[in-house]
């Protein structure tokens, strides 16, 4: 199976899981954001280039599934995928916990960036208690789940992708 088809399979599986399962399992109104997790994971495993592209498509799927301004999640998640790729590449000696810490921090930044971007396109009112719950739930869940998605992307992109990103 080609790389593109494998990545598409991961994105499609994520869409089904998010739509069918994770959006139903809400903790105080906040659900796990698998698409942000995929953007972060793609950046870690595939580097900035692939992180940006996969982040873009992950965000675009979430845009199509939801009712936010179309393209807004795509914009934020492609930036997050790119930034995570750059930061992960810059880490010389990664510890076992580094992907989890990076996923936690990148989730915080990603959600905040989305709220700021929403504000800039006129969608105000997102800064409330719900935002704090979303920040906490998504960041913790993504930190816990990132080893699983990293493994999936190592399979999809090939182990060499991970080595290349690390060498850079």
């Amino acid at each position, binding site marked *: 199976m080609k790389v593109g088809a494998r990545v598409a399979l991961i994105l499609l599986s994520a*869409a*089904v*899981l*998010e*739509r*069918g*399962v994770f*959006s*139903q*399992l*809400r*903790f105080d*109104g*906040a*659900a796990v*954001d698998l698409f942000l997790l995929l953007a972060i994971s793609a950046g870690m495993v595939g*580097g*900035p*280039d692939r992180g*940006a*592209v996969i982040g*873009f498509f992950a*965000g*675009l799927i*979430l*845009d*199509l*599934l*939801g*009712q*936010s*301004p*179309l*393209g*807004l*999640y*795509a*914009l934020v998640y*492609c*930036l997050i995928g*790119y930034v995570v*790729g750059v930061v992960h590449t810059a880490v010389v000696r990664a510890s076992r916990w580094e992907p989890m810490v990076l996923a936690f921090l990148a989730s915080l930044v990603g*959600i905040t960036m*989305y*709220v700021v971007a*929403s504000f800039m*396109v006129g*969608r*105000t*009112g*997102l800064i*409330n*208690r*719900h935002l704090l719950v*979303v920040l906490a739930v*998504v960041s913790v869940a993504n930190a816990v789940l990132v080893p699983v998605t990293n493994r999936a992307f190592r399979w999809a992109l090939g182990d060499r992708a991970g080595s290349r990103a690390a060498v*850079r």
Partner: protein
Amino acid sequence: MALSRRIGRSRFTLLLLVLTSLTLVTLDFRGFGPLDQARSSVLSVFAPVGDGASGLFRPIGNFWHGAFAYDDLQHQNDALRAQIDDLQGQVTAGEVAKRSNQELLAQAKLPFVGDLQTVRARVTSGAVANFDETIEINKGSNDGIKKDMPVVTGTGLVGSIVQVSDNRAVVRLVTDTSFQVGVNALGTAFNGVARGQGSDHQLKATMDVTAQVAPGQILVTRSIPGGRFPSDLPVGTVATVTADDGSLQRAIDVNLLADMQDLTYVSVVLWEPSP
């Protein structure tokens, strides 16, 4: 040299993606038809997938709700027991109350949906994204539902249709931060605009500073030419009124009449604004 070329290529890719995203956002704001069509297609495609997955994983969801919403369930249970007690006491007075209610509605000239045709639909799921306040219902354009039609329960307005496919529709709830509706204080000529405030399930309305509104007063939808709502759909009751001396408007907290926590069935009002 190779490294800088690679970084340059990465930045070029990122720039292209950012520009594409911004173009999509712009086109979406301008109401570009094909994007709307793409969303409707995704809604159709994922409806059975989502329903199947929901059915398959419902036991997990039930366990989750049981584990993390135990306190809420306990409160609901207590509230329901109290309601049963109240209702048993009210059964005998029910007919009298019904008659009084009909008289009140007639006096207030508030026919609720009146002669307007409605389509009853079941809520199949909630929003996918964290910042959307939407629900999905099991009826679509095959049942005559169109974009922007109002959605109500037996007690009041809950939202409007934002996306339609053949057998599915998405309702933007009144609590969504991008939702706004023109309101009128019942029995007065005072008009205002009510806006969603996110998940705290209250609306905030603004009215002219001269408006004489008091807590408990009912707010209903106001029909304006080309507007999205017919007149006199109950929205909520005035909770508090804040008068700011320096402002030309009053800020009003509105308690919704519809129970947004427990939406199982809703009715879509088949109403379209006259051109």
